[in-house]
Each structure stands twice: as C-alpha cells, then as structure tokens.
C-alpha cells in the first residue's frame, strides 16, 4: 500500500475518532463567544474540520482517472436485458 494511502487512511480514522469527544460530555463551560456551550462549539468546529479534510482529499486523493470516462457502445442495454439468473 502506498504511503499516501496509509497517511490519508490514518487521517480519516483520527478525525472519525475525534468525533467522540468524551472530555466534553458533562461540561458546558467555558461558553464560547459567551453563549455557545463548549460541547456544541466543539462539534461545530468539527464540522469545519470535516470540510477541511474533504478539501485535502479532493486535493491529494481525487480519482482523476474518472474524469476521462466515456460511454461504451453497449450503453443502456444492461439495465433492460433479462436473463441473468
């Protein structure tokens, strides 16, 4: 397996694990901006982190080979043929 694949897999797993923020479970303070409980602010920040992760994946792991996909001649037939049993 390529190093890039390993690093990206670990990155995804690490961010997945960060979702389970046990350390904030019973805490409401500090209130971020004076009104957002810390548990809610953390999860909002997590949404931003998820967006950044997707940006990284688009940048370094984008399936470029799919950009050149062309239809085949036999296109559309497979949905309508009967007989595969």
């Amino acid at each position: 397996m390529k190093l890039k694949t390993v690093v990206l897999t670990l990155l995804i797993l690490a961010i997945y694990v960060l979702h389970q923020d046990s350390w904030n479970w019973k805490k409401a303070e500090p209130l971020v901006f004076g009104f957002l409980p810390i548990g809610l602010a953390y999860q909002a920040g997590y949404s931003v982190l998820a967006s950044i992760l997707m940006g990284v994946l688009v940048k370094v792991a984008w399936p470029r080979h799919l950009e050149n996909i062309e239809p085949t001649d036999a296109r559309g037939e497979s949905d309508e043929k009967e007989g595969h049993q």
Partner: protein
Amino acid sequence: MIPVVVVGIYLAIIAVIGSVAFRRSKANTEDFFLANRAVGSMVFFLSIFATNMTAFAILGSSGQAYRQGIGIYGLMASSSGLVIPLTIFFIGTRLWAIGKRFGHQTQVGFFRDRWECSTIGTLIFILSVAMLVPYMIISIMGGGRVLNDISGGQVAYWLGCAIVALVVTANVFFGGMRGTVWVNIFQTVLFLLFGAVALGVISHGLQGGFGEYIDKILNNPKTRYLVTRERMPERYFWSYTFIPLSSIMFPHMAIMCFAARKVTAFKRTVVLYPLAIMAIWLPCIFLGVIGTQLEPNLAKPDGILLHLLTDHAPAWLAGILGAGIISAVMGSDTHQVLAVSTMFTKDVFAHYGGTAKYGERSTVMFARGFILCVTGLAYVIALNTPESIFELAVRFAFSGFAAMAPVMIAALFWRRSTKYGALASTLWVAAWLLLTWYLQRISDGTAPKPGQPVALIYPALGHLLERSTANVTVFGFLPVVPMVLGSAVLMILVSLIPRPPSQATIDKYFSAQLAGSNFPGSRPQKAMAQAGGSSRF
C-alpha cells in the same frame, strides 16, 4: 394570513420553474430521470443537499434539541458532516462513472449487471422500495403539518397535505429531474438562509442576550442536561455515526449521483457539504435549546421554531421562513417521488421488456402515469394512517439503508464479491428490520421515561437487548451497529464460497478507466479491447 400569502407566492414560483423545465424536456428516460446527465457543479451541490435534507433538519432538529439538548448536533449533524461527504467522495463518484460508462440509471441496474443476476436486483429493489415509500409518505404528512401550523390552522391538515402532494406531483410529472434540480436551487438557497435569519431575528427580539438564557439553563439542575450530554449514553452517540452511511444508499441520493455532468461536480459538493449542514443545524439546535426558556412546556416540541417565529418575527418574515421550511420538505420529497418512479420504470417496466416493446416515449409516459398513481396513493395513506407508524418505519429505513452500504462498497471495490454475498447481506438486513420492529412493539409498554434507566427487554438475556425511551439497543448500541457489521462480514464470507462473476464482467467493472491504472488487478488492455475503448488508453 400574511404567512399563507407568502407561502402561496413561493408555491407559484415553484410551479413556474417546473413548467419552464417541462418545455426543455425530451421524450427519453435519460432526460426525464437524469436531466440528460448534465447537472452542473453548483446546481449539483444545491440539489444533492436538498435531496438529503428534510423538514427534520429544521423542525425535527430543534424539537429534539428542545427535548434532549445540544447533544443532538454531534449525534446527527456533525457525524453526517463527516460521513456523508466521505461516502459521496468514495462511492458517489464511482457510481457516477459506471452510470456514465454503462448507462445505469439505478443502483439495482448496476447490481444486476455487476453480479450477473436479475433476482438479487429484484430483492434489493423490493427492500429499497419498502424502506423508501414510508419516507415519501411522511414527507407529505410533514408538509401538511407545517402548512397547518404556519397558517395558524387556517389551512386544514388534509388541505396542506394535498397542496404539498399536488405541487410535488406537478413538479416531477412535468419537469422530471430537470424540473426537480432547478427548483432545488431556489429551495436550497431559501433553507440554507433560514437558520441564520431565524437566529438573527429571534435574538433581535429577545430581552437580554443568548448568554443570559444559556446561564439560566446551566444554573438550573433540572435543565443543565440540555447544555451538556450527561443524559446521552456514549455508546448511543457512537452508534449514530453509522447512520449517515444510509445517505448514499437511499435511491434518490444514488440516482442524483448519476445525474452530474462531470465527476468534478463532486469536488465542490464534498467540501461544502459539512458547512451547509452546520449552517442549518447549528442555529436550529441552538434555538431549540433556547426555546425551552422562551416557550416552556410545549406539548409538541417539533413546533418550537414556528412558535418562536410567530412570537418574535414580523408576519411577512415568518412567511418567508415558513417557505424555507416547506422547501426542505419538498426538496427531498420531489426526489423521493422521482426515485420511486425511476426504479419502477427502469428496474421493473424496462427490465422486463416494457421499453423494448413500447419504446422510450411510452416509457416516459408510463413513468408519468406512475408518478400520478404513487403520489395519489401516498396522499390517501397520509390522511388515513397514524404518523407514528411511518416515523418508526423511517427510523428503521435509515438503519436498513446504512446496513446495505457494505453491499455497494463490495460491488464497487471488490472484484471477488458475488451475488450470494449480496443476497446474504440483504436477508440479514431484512431479518434485522423485522426483529427490531418486533422488539420495539413488545417493549413499548415498558419504555422508560426520559432520564430514567433503560429497561431489559428479556431479563434472562441480561443487557443484550435493552429498551431506552425511544429505541431498542443491543448492549447499549443501536441496532444499526450489528446490522452494518454483520452485513459486511456476511458479504465477505459468503462471497468467498461460490465462484466469482465471469472474468468479462470483472474486467468490465475493474478496467483501467474505472479502477485507475494503479488499481491492483486492473486489466487495461483486455478491458479496453472488450469495451471498445478509446485510443487514448
């Protein structure tokens, strides 16, 4: 009356957009069901987001926050913000590619061809429709309820359901996928703005700031749980991260993936998706929690945002915000109706020879006729069946579709996967749905009240099967966990027993074009020769 007029104007705009789309349509299924696979990047993002967002994102989220507090955001929103874009990135792009290359318009069409088996496709079709139709019905119910609430009861529930069903039907009937995605642009912009505008308007009308209300909640031992997750079991919270796997398996989401013009349309979508979820869910959940102080002791907490808007926003603005809520209802409902119609037309009518016999034009007419029948039937059922039945069915549908994700992953990425593995996974999912339904029913009478400890369903089995306020759990985990893991294990183990699909089929789906030249085992030369591939490769 003003909110009703504003919502009426909104519905008229939707109808006009649908009629313009109708004039652009062509009489073939690819155009009707997939807008000729020509949906551009920004429209694709707005439309796929509308496909996945229901009224629950606005009304249900704030209602749940009113009951359970801020934990709902992490439970449902931020986990979706990670998992859904990941599934769109890894699965959606591949679905688009096989659709573009081989002409598939549904998941079932792909499964049938991939595993050289009509029957497995039919089974997955039956399970998918059984899980999708309740979702469609509950959307009509939700729309009727919202119109009834916004109008202060002036628009009766039956009339509200009828208006939603009619507008959705007209939109899909005339415009097909093109009409649906055009309308989605308008709808998504409206409900993306909803949260921020609602937050701003309500805060403007408050005595003191939000911080003052949060302090009150925090300093009252009876309400403190609303700003923490102390009443939310950690296993339950973790289990919920499996639920968003369902998104890409919902037929209307998968079909939407087939409709993109280029695979690059997915780039913007996956990056913006978590932020768009946050834009809607964060204000709604926060307002749901604040609502416990402003509108205490509501009998129906799902109406909290409507109460807040009525009391704190001018009537015309409440109307626009109401239109935002209706947008969320209709955006997903139109895609569900279109998906059910696409599946019946392609997976049943066309698959069993209808298109070959009657031609493309007649197939589109069949699809339109089917849309009329299915929405008419859904409307009648919506009026005559308790909503609680469908609420339960929809919750199960999320677990069911999530547990079908390993089947799709195996079909796309594992050459050795077989129809028997898919069959075992499908039966496993169906069996769990029936079991969970049964356990839910028999434990309804012993379900604990919020804040009370869980009840053992069969004391002899210890903590294996427990009942919380709303759910059956397995060792404290939601059933979706054993469903997904069991489905994955069965897919792998059972696939290894029989012979794999023919080499020609494997080469077809794992050619260099689809799997990439670095994909292990891809056979560029042979695959290109068999597929009549272009000279560029």
